[in-house]
């Protein structure tokens, strides 16, 4: 099936080469990081994780969100998702690959990464994250490829895929729960030490991932003959709306607990993120942008009439996705490190090289996504041609 990715329009190839160019630049930047160390980033002794780990966390959510299509289609026999579920599975594959790349980019000694397997440590959450992420990647790759292959031949997928599909549902929940546990079990980081962390992660994942999927589905319709289906897109819009409300609600709970309890350590990270501490306010504009975008997106999504207009829906999804990207891909990590363990403030801002490496990883993910979607679309277009 992969050969379908080798023929395409000029626009397709231009996009591919553009992505390759961005990857190339990111790779050169990474070579510099590999030689000189993570000192080329904006990270410090006090803020020891930043953009890379933020992106990793955010993308685990995007990967997990595929389950929002799998559950309705396979468990509730919601036929409308029949054509689009493959887009979710392939998005998950690309997102997990990006997660792995971001982790590698963040390692001080990436060539020693096999130590995680050579000296397995079940007490460490990272060990389990490696296990569940790789498992999830494999599951989605197998499920996506097999079902699409069967589709192409016009036959039903083989029976052995079904158990794998059912397994992928709790597995998707597990990847984001385990990722939340990376943070939520650390003593002394007040911002992260919250029992609703995993719940918040899942809520934001089930809002952000499907929002991205809506945007992708609309793009697919625009640039190909494959129509993922208006009703399917609308149904995802509903999912996004509910999940985003849940996410904002959970964030509200965090604010309540921090400020009503009035415990300084719990309030400080919020104060830093949304108001600044002693004039240290680098993240304040960003966090407010995130909040405003979230409100705008919800104000649109909550009205079915507005949501039904696909232009407006797309706008709301972009706003929502950006909002969550800032909140989870950036604020969530930095808020855990500021103030530091001595209640001092060291600020963090990514450097140019760090941003280029990050873009390079995103471009790699999009390249993979493009190729996988190209294959899926080609199969769908063939199907459509046969039906007519």
């Amino acid at each position, binding site marked *: 099936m992969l050969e379908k990715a080798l023929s395409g329009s000029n626009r397709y190839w231009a996009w591919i080469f553009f992505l390759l160019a961005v990857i190339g630049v990111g790779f050169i930047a990474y070579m510099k990081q590999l030689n000189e160390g993570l000192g080329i980033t904006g990270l410090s002794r*006090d803020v020891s*994780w930043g953009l890379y780990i933020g992106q990793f966390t955010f993308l685990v959510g995007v990967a997990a969100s595929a389950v929002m299509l799998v559950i309705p289609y396979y468990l509730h026999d919601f036929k409308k998702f029949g054509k689009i579920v493959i887009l979710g599975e392939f998005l998950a594959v690309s997102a997990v690959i990006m997660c792995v790349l971001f982790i590698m980019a963040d390692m*001080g000694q990436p060539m020693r990464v096999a130590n995680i397997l050579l000296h397995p440590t079940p007490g*460490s959450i*990272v060990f389990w994250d490696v296990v569940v992420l790789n498992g999830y990647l494999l599951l989605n790759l197998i499920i996506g490829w097999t079902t699409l292959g069967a589709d192409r031949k016009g036959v039903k997928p083989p029976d052995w895929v079904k158990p794998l599909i059912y397994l992928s549902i709790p597995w998707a929940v597990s990847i984001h729960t385990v990722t939340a546990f990376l943070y939520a079990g650390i*003593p*002394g980081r007040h911002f992260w030490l919250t029992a609703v962390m995993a719940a918040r992660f899942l809520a934001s994942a089930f809002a952000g991932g499907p929002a991205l999927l809506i945007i992708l589905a609309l793009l697919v319709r625009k640039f190909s003959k494959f129509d993922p289906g208006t009703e399917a897109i609308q149904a995802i819009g509903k999912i996004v709306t509910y999940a985003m409300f849940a996410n904002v609600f959970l964030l509200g709970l965090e604010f309540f607990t921090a400020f009503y309890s009035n415990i300084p*350590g719990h309030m400080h990270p919020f104060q830093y993120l949304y108001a600044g501490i002693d004039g240290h306010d680098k993240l304040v504009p960003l966090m407010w942008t995130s909040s405003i975008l979230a409100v705008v997106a919800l104000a649109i999504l909550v009205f079915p009439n507005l949501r039904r207009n696909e232009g407006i829906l797309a706008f709301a999804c972009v706003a929502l996705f950006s909002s969550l990207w800032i909140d989870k891909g950036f604020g969530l990590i930095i808020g855990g490190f500021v103030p530091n363990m001595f209640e001092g403030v060291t600020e963090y801002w990514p450097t140019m090289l760090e941003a280029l490496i990050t873009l390079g990883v995103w471009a790699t993910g999009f390249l993979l996504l493009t190729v996988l979607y190209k294959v899926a679309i080609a199969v769908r277009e063939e199907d459509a041609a046969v039906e007519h």
Partner: protein
Amino acid sequence: MSMNRRQFITVAGISTVLGVGSASVIIGLGKSSLEAAQISPDPRALKAKRWGFVVDVSKLASDEDYRKCIDACHDIHNVPNNPNPMHEVKWIWKDTYEHTFPNVAEDKIMNVELQEKNFLLFCNHCANPACVRVCPTKATFKRKSDGIVMQDMHRCIGCRFCMAACPFGARSFNYVDPRPNIAKEKQNKTFPTRMIGVVEKCTACYERLAIGQQPACAEASNGAIVFGDLEDPDSEIRKLISEKYTIRRKPELGTQPGIYYVIGGGEHA
């Protein structure tokens, strides 16, 4: 992971067989003579159930007193003096009361003398270390023999999870190559440096304990830092703790830090 001698010989033996043209070596050496080979601790090594520290800040009067302890440690361990404060590497350092005890410091009307005190901070060698719990490779681990929280720089992959987990900010990461930032004339040729991409911290001078010496900071502190066995009721450190009022950093987190601070001045206990 530890290998016993038999496993070691097996591994050595198998790799020897695989090595081209060295089969004769096993016959000559493998079975009979290597059996005698042994690995053991130095008989001079200091032993304890759980090492800990008492830091009496009343005995640290001048800046010079702090400096002596810090330099003693940083010089023998080749700790680099990185120019960019973001990339700072430190095993032991001086900090204010407010920074040392942020959880109890929010009191504007407290004893001024105490508020203006400085403290010596280093790894607490906790009994329940959060850093060890999160490390995915056991690069940081608690020694079963004496409770020292060790850092194996050979195994560290630089994920920096331990830095996120340590509530005491005791850990430093090598963001840049440390070598150029260690003055040549100061370099301790008997101890390694580190490389980019690994985490380091105070190791309670495990290399000195192994040959019967006290930790460098304690030795240089003129009695301000007392090192001893927290599990031995008759040790000097236990006597100090039972006689004087001591506080530990962030005890509420349950890590059981192993540094007890004596503020001094009036005897509270």
